[in-house]
């Protein structure tokens, strides 16, 4: 049902309805932002990627082929853009020898989460996710937080289901170890 609604919105947008695009953005902006935020670990980068994704959506929605769900199509863009952003950041760090702590502090100055309890939760989450390898992090977020199946994750990441299962196994192994250490 949701898929049909999405397809109708895309068709309306392709036919020239700007309102249809607004509806798509309002429906998915939250998921786009939080997926990027969990992958990137700070608001500034997540905001940049979210805007980038929405602009790409506006420009490329006419190429959507209705073979997959709009949700997985959008998430594929978010994942790709976020990972590219992370890789660029790593290259910058190597080239310009950026101070990681200073950079994080600066990037977290302006945040959409200001409530103290929520900030603590967010910091805890970031610390755990930061220990995971990129592929593990991606599959852990998509499966654990977004509740997607391996098949859906495979459509988004372009990786095999077997490989994703292995990545997820290693991810939850690290996560459970870290959580156990913190509880001790």
């Amino acid at each position, binding site marked *: 049902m949701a898929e049909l609604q999405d397809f109708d919105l895309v068709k309306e947008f392709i036919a020239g309805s700007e309102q249809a695009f607004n509806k798509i953005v309002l429906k998915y902006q939250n998921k786009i*932002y939080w997926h990027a935020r969990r992958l990137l670990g700070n608001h500034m980068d997540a905001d940049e990627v979210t805007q980038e994704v929405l602009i790409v959506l506006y420009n490329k929605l006419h190429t959507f082929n209705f073979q997959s769900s709009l949700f997985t199509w959008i998430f594929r863009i978010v994942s790709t853009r976020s990972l590219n952003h992370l890789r660029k950041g790593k290259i910058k760090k190597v080239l310009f020898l950026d101070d990681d702590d200073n950079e994080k502090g600066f990037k977290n100055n302006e945040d*959409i*989460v200001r*409530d103290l309890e929520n900030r603590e939760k967010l910091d805890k989450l970031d610390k755990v996710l930061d220990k995971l390898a990129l592929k593990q992090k991606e599959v852990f977020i998509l499966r654990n937080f977004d509740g997607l199946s391996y098949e859906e994750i495979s459509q988004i990441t372009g990786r095999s289901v077997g490989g994703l299962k292995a990545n997820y196994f290693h991810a939850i192994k690290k*996560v459970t170890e870290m959580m156990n250490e913190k509880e001790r």
Partner: protein
Amino acid sequence: MKRNDDILRYLSDFMSEKERLEFEKELSFSEELRNQVAEKKSILENMNAIADIKEDSPYFQNLLPRVRAKVEKKKSVMWVPRWAYLLVSSTAVILIVVNISRFGTGNENSAKKSVQEKQSEPTYIEYSLNNDNVVKSDIDLVNTDNTDKVNFEIGISQLSNTNKESLKELSKYQRIMWNIDNNSVAYNSGY
């Protein structure tokens, strides 16, 4: 350790069908294993609870207008596709090649031009009675075809037809002058 890995593999659906059936069989008999599985599940669920964060700023209210503004800005900037640059540069190269093959280089042109200029230059003719004794005469040839002053030199081979005509008239005029001079010399000397 192996038990821990088996639990995580089970939760990851990272087991073969046979392994999964065996694990589930063991799970139905062992309460300890059930507790261990429940513990791991609760850690992961706890992670979900941590990740459930509510934003407390109007970020999402402002997001759409910001994106819209960026989209409009991009629309207003004239977009030039990459192939356009290639087209322009290749056209320029083709034009240069065609130009060179059609008109040649500047040196060839100037050589041709200098020959043409030489041919169209007015011919100054020097006149002399003897080849090795050039005499420049300032004879006014108002009545001649196309030159005001003609310097005449015997032996000049490259002459235009007009100049050849002028040359004939000049020599006729000179002969007349020569006769007048001779006659006056003869008259003065008493011949």
